[in-house]
Each structure stands twice: as structure tokens, then as C-alpha cells.
């Protein structure tokens, strides 16, 4: 199928869905539960016109981005350090795996207890989630550098510092981006979750507040804004990846072969 046809089908699908929704609302399902596209659009327009949408979205974006940056930086540093320091990594391994398997949301009440209900709590909560994902990927990346590769370069008189700079770091970067891509939805989950639990601003707050007032249209409007934000964040990471790793682009573009 051509790219145009694919897009055309997508548009058709969205329109069909919206029409079905509009028709069903009030006839098959009470509007209280599902609202309707026209109401949601109206709400969105109202939010946008009053500047509320930009206000709340900017807080959510800030929470997600700041936490993302903080967690990614810490995760990379820790991953590199532990990737090189095998003994420590071996000792810490079961603890890290244990911590990794804790549902992160379960830690939210503790974060509120420690850091209050302000910006700090949301940013740190996001950072904690992103840290784990980026850390694990960076760590794997450092450990996966081929020993044969390193031996060949050592034979060419490469020093340990050169190996770090020219082999270990660049190959870890590829894994870091994998971690970053995986982190995007989690960063948003962290930010929205934090805002829903304890805040008076952000898209998460908007969503929780609308639901609490049985304003289904408002809730769907907030949801739509969250989806758009997620798509934007994803695009941002992909753009950064394409800039940082042009050779990866080449790899995916190559013809299929085993």
C-alpha cells in the first residue's frame, strides 16, 4: 500500500470512529459516560481559548521533561559506572532487579510524603522511573561491548581511556536511546500520576478534576491533550536519535537480510 493510501485509510478510520461515537452518544449510551465528539471539541476549544490548556499542558510537559532529563542523566552515569565496575554490579544485581520489578506507581505515596505535593515531587517521581529504564539499558550496552572487538583494538595499542571514548561510550549511546525511547510513556505516566494524586495544575489534574465533577467531556478533552503531548515527546526523542546515531538510520534502511 502506498504511503498516501495508508494515511487515507487512517483518516477514514478516525472519521468513522468519530461519527459512530457522535451517533451512539445519547442514543445507545448515556452522554454522562462517553460524552460526544462535539462536546469534547467544544471543551477543548474553550480550554485552548482561555489559555488553560497551554497552562496545564506546560506544567505536565515541564514535569515530564525535567524528570526525563534528570533520570536519563543519572541513569546513563550509573549505567556506565556499573558497566565498568563488574564487582559492584555483581553485588548489586539482585537488589536492582528487585527494585526494577516493584510497580513504580506504588512508590507515589512515599514520594508525596518525602517531597510534598509541589513540582519537586513530580519531577523526582518521573526521574526515578526514567532512571531505572535508562540505567538498565546503558548497563546492558556497556556489558555487551564485544570483548573480541576490544582485544583487537588493544592489539593496536589502544589505551583504556581510548577504548572507553571510542568504543564503550559510543556503543552505550545506542542503548541509551533505546532506554530513552522506552522511557517516554513512563515519564508521562509518572507526571500525570503525580498530578492526579496531588496537584492543582497539569493535565493530570485537569483530568482528575473533570472526572470528579462528572464532566466527561472535560475528561476526554484532557485525555486528548495528553495523547498529543505523548506523540510530541516521542517525535522529539526520535529526532534526537536520528541526529545522534545516523548510522542506525542506515541500518534500518538497508535491505532485508539475515
Amino acid at each position, binding site marked *: 500500500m502506498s504511503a498516501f493510501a495508508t494515511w487515507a485509510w487512517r483518516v477514514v478510520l478516525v472519521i468513522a470512529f468519530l461519527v459512530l461515537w457522535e451517533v451512539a452518544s445519547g442514543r445507545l449510551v448515556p452522554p454522562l459516560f462517553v460524552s460526544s465528539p462535539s462536546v469534547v471539541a467544544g471543551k477543548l476549544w474553550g480550554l485552548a481559548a482561555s489559555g488553560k490548556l497551554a497552562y496545564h499542558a506546560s506544567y505536565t510537559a515541564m514535569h515530564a521533561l525535567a524528570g526525563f532529563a534528570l533520570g536519563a542523566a543519572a541513569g546513563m552515569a550509573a549505567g556506565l559506572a556499573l558497566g565498568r565496575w563488574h564487582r559492584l554490579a555483581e553485588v548489586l544485581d539482585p537488589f536492582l532487579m528487585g527494585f526494577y520489578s516493584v510497580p513504580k506507581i506504588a512508590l507515589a505515596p512515599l514520594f508525596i510524603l518525602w517531597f510534598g505535593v509541589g513540582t519537586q515531587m513530580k519531577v523526582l517521581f518521573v526521574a526515578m522511573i526514567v532512571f531505572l529504564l535508562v540505567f538498565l539499558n546503558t548497563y546492558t550496552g556497556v556489558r555487551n561491548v*564485544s570483548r*573480541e*572487538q576490544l*582485544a*583487537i*583494538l*588493544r*592489539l*593496536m*595499542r*589502544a*589505551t583504556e581511556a*581510548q577504548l572507553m571514548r*571510542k*568504543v564503550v561510550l*559510543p*556503543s552505550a549511546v*545506542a542503548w541509551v536511546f533505546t532506554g530513552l525511547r522506552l522511557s517516554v510513556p513512563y515519564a508521562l505516566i509518572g507526571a500525570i500520576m503525580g498530578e492526579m494524586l496531588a496537584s492543582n495544575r497539569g493535565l493530570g489534574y485537569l483530568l482528575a478534576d473533570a472526572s470528579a465533577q462528572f464532566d466527561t467531556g472535560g475528561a476526554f478533552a484532557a485525555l486528548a491533550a495528553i495523547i498529543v503531548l505523548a506523540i510530541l515527546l516521542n517525535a522529539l526523542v526520535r529526532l534526537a536519535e536520528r541526529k545522534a*546515531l*545516523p*548510522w542506525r538510520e*542506515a*541500518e534500518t534502511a*538497508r535491505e532485508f537480510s539475515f
Partner: protein
Amino acid sequence: MSGLRVVKPAAGSGQPERRAEGAQPLLEFVGVAKHFFVGGELRPAVEDVELAVRPGEIVTLVGPSGCGKSTLLNMAAGLFAPTRGAVRYGGTAVAGLNHSVGYMTQQDHLLPWRTTLDNIALPLELRGEARDRRIARALDLVRVVGLQGFERHFPSQLSGGMRKRCALARLLAYDPETLLLDEPFGALDAQLRLGLQAELLRLVRELGKTALFVTHDLDEAIALADRCVVFQGRPGRIVEQITVDLPPDRDLLALRLLPRYVELTQRLWRRMAPELARASAPERAR
């Protein structure tokens, strides 16, 4: 290590003639055995290896898979020490990494985030050469291995043969005294393999390099060699050494018609696959 500065076609005959018989061996295995721990038990990989490689000599190692040929290369590179015996390079025991050798393995081990040019220039970069000199040298080598037009490509955009050529160029950029080659042309098609073999032979002769070359290809084992060392069994032992008395600057294509070449490859085939050779013998007698 300066030989590589003079890369020019082998038109002249003023090549360094270093293959003096009876010269001091450059690389020497004396009563070498190597054992590995595999699954909790000690397994020998090679036993009783006595082998001396003279400067300027190309020695090929053939034998079935798993008879420890690569193990010998690893010991020559100093990646690990023999369990028994000694590996000597230039008269002294190899202890730690042997920087006088360059290693080319089955996998090309190019850095995927570097272009062809930057991969080739890597050894020069490690040595701390100035950027413009690195690039100039790497461009020379791109021409030597015929990768013009692919200087800015990433390894993932190159074919298997091109990657091999890139790895060969990188090895030449390092300019080691001795080349350790572990089935470098294993997975290439016939014409590409022949081209690279000819290129390798020419470069090794022209630059006066010494080479230890592991291969599974019996024709290659004779065609490129001054001496062909045959391994057999597990642990691997040397069962025969065939001195290849063909001209050192040989034409690999014309070689196939020489009776002496045919004779030598026949001998190697009989050694490697006696039952096959016997089966085909009556047919040849007709």
C-alpha cells in the same frame, strides 16, 4: 614498521627479499600446548605444536574445525599464554599483548558508528597522528582495497566483501610487522575472494610482511602459502608441513594450471580427506 609508506604497483622488482632460508624465526611455537576449562573440565585445544615462522614467510594453517588453529593465533597475539611450552616473537617470549601483530578475524569488527574512512583511520587516531595526515593515509588505503566511492558509508551500508576490505585496510593502517588472519575471506563469493587473495599476496610481498593465515579452503591454503601446516584431531596436532615451492609473486589465476600446484593441492586433499581421495583415485587413473 615503515614499509607501508611505499604503496605502489608491483611493477618493479625491488621488493624487500626477506625470505632468506635459515634466517632467525620471527614467530616460534616451542612444544606448545593449550588447555581450556570447558564446563568444569580441562580440555586440551592443541598439543605439541612446534612451528617456526621466518620473517617474510606466509604460513597457512589448515585442519578441521575445532582443532585449535585460532588458539595458536590468539597465543601469537598474546591474548593468552600457552599451558605448556613457549611462544616466542622476535626471539623473546610473548608476555602480554603482542603489538607487533595485527589481527583480522572472521568477523570484521568494524565500529558501526564510524564511516569507512574513519574505521580505516582508527589505528592512526589511536597513535595520535594529526587529522589531515590520518585522512590522507586512510584515503590511500581506500584506493589500495578498492573502496573508492564508499568513504562516507557506514559498515551497515557495505556488502560483506566491502566490509572485509575495509577491515583489511584498517589492518594495513596499523601497519603491523606480522599479520594474523583467521579465515578472513571465509564467506565471500569466488571472484571477490580471488581478488582479495591477490591483493593480500601482493601487499604482503611488497611490504615485506609475515603472515600466519588460518583457512578452511584447501586451494587457498596452497595458493597463498610458502608453507602449509596441516592440523588434525582434537586436540589439534601438526601432522604435516607442506613446503610450497611455487614462485613467491605468483599469479593466482594462472597458478591453477601449474602441474606443481595441482600436485600440492592433491597432496593436501589426500591428507585432509583420505577416503574421498581414494574414492576418486580410480577415476583419475582412466
